[in-house]
């Protein structure tokens, strides 16, 4: 095991690459949950974003349209969750899970219909890179202070937090609780969709069934780990990305004369997360009305 394997420049670069999609999902989760809606359909939003992004980019030959379409697709799926969670007061977890299954089924089905057995064509346009990282990595990082500023420095952010903490109080000062929640859930879907675009358009340059592979859920864990704050989410996503980077860079490493089994290296990001949460993060308090459907009284 060498130092380069643990903190080398390539490991750090890999950390950023691996953290970005989780960060985007987590920022979405922060916004949604700060407004009081648990959106576990982030995974689904990512997946439809990844798929639609590829389809749109390939059909129009425009990377901009591809990314935009991914964002819209993620937003639309979140919109269904919003209607269910806010309008129908569905159980937010069941609704989110249903949408995740739906997203997987739908994208896999359409992927098969569109690209059959050949797979995504190779001529999908490229996303620009800056300093050897996809532009979307930098976008995701830039979104951290922006989300922070939005939540804590703007009128809309103030209202959004109010709605997530005490929707009835917000209602009494004339804030449309449902409207704010809709906006927040849609925004979370947009961010997750962008995360999907990053995966398909930047990382993979193609779509494969179920390619988000649970990143939406890891993003949700990052929300809690980061105590519902954008900066906390960044820390969590980076830690997780680092763990993942290690599980690649440490392949072939030995302890004494024994090779570390490659499969066990796969546990690193998850172990690191548990250790960090148990060791440093501990108790975390969600927004008071998180996950609780809001119903106007007397109507």
């Amino acid at each position, binding site marked *: 095991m060498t130092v380069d394997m643990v903190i080398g420049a390539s490991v750090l670069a890999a950390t950023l690459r691996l953290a970005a999609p989780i960060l985007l999902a987590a920022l979405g989760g922060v916004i949604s949950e700060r407004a009081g809606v648990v959106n576990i359909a982030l995974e689904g939003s990512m997946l439809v974003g990844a798929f639609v992004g590829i389809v749109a980019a390939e059909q129009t030959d425009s990377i901009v349209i591809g990314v935009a379409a991914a964002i819209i697709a993620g937003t639309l799926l979140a919109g269904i969750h919003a209607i269910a969670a806010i309008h129908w007061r569905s159980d937010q977890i069941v609704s989110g899970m249903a949408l995740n299954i739906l997203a997987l089924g739908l994208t896999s089905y359409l992927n098969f219909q569109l690209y059959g057995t050949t797979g995504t064509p190779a001529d999908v346009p490229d996303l620009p890179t800056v300093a050897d990282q996809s532009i979307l990595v930098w976008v995701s990082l830039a979104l951290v202070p922006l989300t922070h500023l939005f939540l804590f420095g703007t009128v809309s952010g103030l209202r959004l937090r109010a709605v997530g903490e005490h929707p009835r109080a917000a209602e009494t000062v004339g*804030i449309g609780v449902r409207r704010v929640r809709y906006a927040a859930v849609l925004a979370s879907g947009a961010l997750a969709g962008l995360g999907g675009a990053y995966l398909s358009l930047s990382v993979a340059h193609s779509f494969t069934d179920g390619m988000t592979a649970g990143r939406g859920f890891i993003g949700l864990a990052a929300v809690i780990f980061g105590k519902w704050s954008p900066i906390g989410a960044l820390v969590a996503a980076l830690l997780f990305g680092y763990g993942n980077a290690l599980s690649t860079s440490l392949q072939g490493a030995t302890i004494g004369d024994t090779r570390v089994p490659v499969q066990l290296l796969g546990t690193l990001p998850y172990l690191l997360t548990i250790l960090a949460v148990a060791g440093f993060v501990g108790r975390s308090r969600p927004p008071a009305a998180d996950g609780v459907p809001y119903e106007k009284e007397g109507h």
Partner: protein
Amino acid sequence: MTALLEMQGIRKRFGELVALDGVDLSVEERDVHALLGENGAGKSTLMNVLYGLYAPDGGRILLRGEDARIGGPRDAIARGIGMIHQHFMLIPPLTVTENVVLGDERTGALLDRRVIRERVRELQSRFGIEVDPDARVEDLPLGLQQRVEILKVLYRGSDLLVFDEPTAVLTPQEVDELFAIVRTLREQGKTVILITHKLREVFAVTDRITVLRLGRNAGSLVTSATTAGEIARLMVGRELRELRPRATAGSRDVVLEVTGLGALSDRGTPALLDVGLTVHAGEVLGIAGIGGNGQSELAECIMGLRRPTAGDMRIGGADVSRDGPRRTRAGGVCYVPEDRRREGLVLAFTVADNLILGKQAGPPYATFGVLDPQVIEREGALLAREFDVRPPNPLAIAGNLSGGNQQKVVLGRELSSSPRLIVVSQPSRGLDIAATEYVHDRLLEQRARGAAILLISSELDEIRALSDRIAVMYEGRIVATLPAAEATEERLGLLMAGHESAGAA
């Protein structure tokens, strides 16, 4: 002159329950108007209709003679109606300033904290309302939180301010300060509706009175031309009882002895400092004080729910400082907690299930850990009847009961085991007069039986009505302990506000 506000024939029903059955209300401009009635009379419902939180099923609202449709709080605010809610409508983690401006920030998209802080400061100085604009609301005592509510309403330029039971959580001094604010408001041209069921307050500050009973008008009065007796008859439909004279305390055996007790609050700040007290068998020790001065922590320490950082506690001579709630209760201590809906009851459980909370592990309800549902239901039915829970159905869901009946369930559970020490916190909060009387009777019955009672209440009337001795808490300390006879309202009020010298007088 037309009235500022006319509500005519307002109807509102919730499923089976008719909450308002054609209620009228007429409020003159620049008046302080009392809206009186027992709990469940429909006062809050009427005001929620006015504020647009409930859509009425019938009737109409006129503002300055014109038909006003109020579809929601936004409409109400736009028409100059402001509401100071009984359960504060504040967002705990936000600052005072943020709470005041929320929903009407007037700063553009970015929140300009400097500008809004200035605006709140101006408002404060104009109406003489003191509170740190940068404090987080969750760190403020209730009295100050109420001021934030008033600032919120004033900030929105309301002309008609509705106060929903504003004094429930205040000390006498705070009540006086509040009324001073109300008078200032009137002088500044505002109109005030004061919802209350406390007659003293009606005479202290109001001009006119509307009394509701069971969702209907029971009478309209001019304050200066009526008497407490008349109002009370209209409210309750009968005469009020006088406070009972107390028998002198019986035995002098010390049941609870607390010395040098210290504890931290949930936030890790000191909540109790060197607290010492004793309660004897057959005695009620009242703990007076403004909420948030360590009373809750004191009760929790005694019950073993909070670990003391210093001092010790003995019950019947045995050291209980390190005991958890299970051991403490096993030693014959029972507890009527402050927040009955969250601490006293599992609202989603049936009455019968609530009646065995804490006793679920042993006979007669369980043998070797297996519950006996028949015994639970039978005992539940007995207790429900004995403690006058209505409906007396042991399978009713506790959350569906009224506040008074919920409290009866708690009392039924706690008092039925003949405890030697009873810790009671805010036992009549939110209850109507009849239910309050019931609770007081039951506590005095226990005292007569020889139980030691530690009564924590921010209602001075209650403290003075029940206690043999009264200790006053202020900022985590007991600043004085007085015999009930010497505890005048003024003296207690001063002590509660931190004027320790009053104790020595």
